[in-house]
């Protein structure tokens, strides 16, 4: 009898046709391959050197990092993607206006789904593990290889099992859990491994699962996978394209480590510069800020905007602070508009922009000057990530970001009641 398997082992076995276990290298069929405007050009050049036909319907091209074009150089780059899409007849190209942060668009457009094997030339491709996919970031050359062959090699990863129990207290969410995990195991604590979440996952909303899976890479992880449940099905039912498969781990699957988190013990977390592993409870924070930034593939979803709007409603952004709100996709933007959230932000004195990665990676629309500090709902706080090398980024969930925008310093939304 064969041994039990993790979800990662099952998906990679089915996609490769090999009965595979952790440590084996397999050659697997990829369901979708995504590139963005930064990683695309290298992939296009590599692909075109091969002189092969592309696997058109499995390719997804999403300009998001430097669009709407921030300068001439990025305009040329975006044009390269547009022209490649036209030249090769790639239907899944999303022009500005129909585009957004690539990972959110992959979800909104129904490419991400349970059981799929998806690669993207962007490290946060691991996001779709929140829906039960095996998805991981690759380089541009590897994306080009998939354009040409529809396949890629994978080392089947060992998995770290994360048992979840209890439920989040009010004001605490997925961002706080993942910062806690990364702080506990370190930014290389899951290198070459996949996280597999289990236990009472029904306590974790799907939006939070996406946030958690998104940051698996910040612990070096190859993937962060939640099993698919009724909540997942509900979440994707209006948008998903095509068939998908639900996988669950075998009871006797082998894990390289097991962690356990009681959600009721978590408090809101803040990751200090310059690594996501520098997490501390927000109650210990005493940091004045110049900017608060809400958006990105980590926390730019409608659920995040609702949390932030709830906090800031009827309040004003601190006079010394710029609060920048960037819904991650057109769908999120529309929904936020329909629910009146954008008006709440603007009434408070926030700047609301259309979907883009923007300042998350130090691209545009919210770059920091020397000495400035920003609390951001993003996933990376590396040196110079959002601008000048002497600026600082503090990572937190949407509630803390909004509360901090009001207070002018990093605070727990609960504290806002007392002071403002």
């Amino acid at each position, binding site marked *: 009898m064969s041994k039990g398997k993790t979800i990662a082992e099952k998906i990679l076995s089915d996609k490769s046709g090999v009965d595979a276990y952790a440590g084996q290298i397999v050659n697997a069929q990829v369901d979708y391959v995504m590139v963005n405007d*930064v990683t695309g050009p290298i992939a296009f050049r590599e692909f075109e050197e091969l002189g092969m036909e592309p696997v058109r319907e499995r390719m997804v091209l999403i300009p998001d990092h430097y669009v709407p074009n921030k300068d001439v150089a990025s305009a040329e780059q975006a044009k*390269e993607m547009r022209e490649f899409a036209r030249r090769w007849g790639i239907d899944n190209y999303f022009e500005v206006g129909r585009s957004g942060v690539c990972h959110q668009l992959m979800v909104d457009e129904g490419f991400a789904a349970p059981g799929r094997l998806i690669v993207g030339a962007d490290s946060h491709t691991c996001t779709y593990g929140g829906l039960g996919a095996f998805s991981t970031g*690759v380089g541009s050359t590897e994306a080009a290889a998939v354009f040409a062959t529809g396949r890629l*090699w994978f080392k089947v990863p060992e998995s770290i099992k994360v048992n979840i129990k209890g439920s989040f207290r009010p004001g605490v969410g997925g961002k706080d859990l993942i910062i806690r995990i990364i702080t506990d195991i370190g930014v*290389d604590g899951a290198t070459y491994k996949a996280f597999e979440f289990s236990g009472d996952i029904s306590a974790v909303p799907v939006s939070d699962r996406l946030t958690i899976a998104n940051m698996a890479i910040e612990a070096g992880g190859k993937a962060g996978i939640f099993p698919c449940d009724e909540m997942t099905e509900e979440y994707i039912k209006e948008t998903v394209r095509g068939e998908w498969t639900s996988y669950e781990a075998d009871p006797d699957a082998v894990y390289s480590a097991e962690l356990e988190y009681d959600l009721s013990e978590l408090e809101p977390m803040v990751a200090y510069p310059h690594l996501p592993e520098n997490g501390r409870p927000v109650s210990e924070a005493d940091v004045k800020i110049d900017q608060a930034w809400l958006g990105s593939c980590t926390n730019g979803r409608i659920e995040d905007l609702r949390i932030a709007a709830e906090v800031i409603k009827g309040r004003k952004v601190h006079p010394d602070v710029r609060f920048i709100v960037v819904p991650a996709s057109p769908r999120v933007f529309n929904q936020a508009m329909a629910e009146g959230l954008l008006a709440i932000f603007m009434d408070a004195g926030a700047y609301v922009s259309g979907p883009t990665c923007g300042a998350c990676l130090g691209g545009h629309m919210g770059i920091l000057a020397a000495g400035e500090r920003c609390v951001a709902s993003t996933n990376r706080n590396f040196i110079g990530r959002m601008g000048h090398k002497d600026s600082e980024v503090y990572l937190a969930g949407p509630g803390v970001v909004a509360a901090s925008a009001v207070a002018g310093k990093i605070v727990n939304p609960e504290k806002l009641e007392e002071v403002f």
Partner: protein
Amino acid sequence: MESHRGKAWRFEDHVDTDQIIPAERLVAENLSKMNEFVFEKVRPGMAQKINKGDIILAGKNFGCGSSREHAPRSLIQAGVSCIIAESFARIFFRNSLNVGLLLVECKVDASEGDDIEVIPKAGKVINHSTGEEFNFPQYPEFVSELVAAGGLMSLIKEGRF
């Protein structure tokens, strides 16, 4: 036997890809001159001082962060022949195999400026400044083949993938 010899540039743990080449440089028009920007935020001026063949020595988790293939490509353009680190981040590792940047997973005692030689086939690093030698294991078979072929694109061109 093939070897790489050069001056050591010393780095600590968790050197991320934003440090190697910042996001604002990632536009297609820079692809042929990425060498100018390597480590510009954390080690200004270093890019201009790297000599062909120089070697980067680092601690754990080198290359963490984004999937930008610009990172290993910019280091090659700058003349770096090899990176020796205690461990590498996964995507950076795969990218380096495909673009031909030699990575050696090994803990080496050396200081900035030491004269370092790497002999891949022998699995050996020599610090000529101190006379010390260090050994590292070979890649798994598939990965060795990939490297020998010159990366994934070469395998595809040869019809082997």
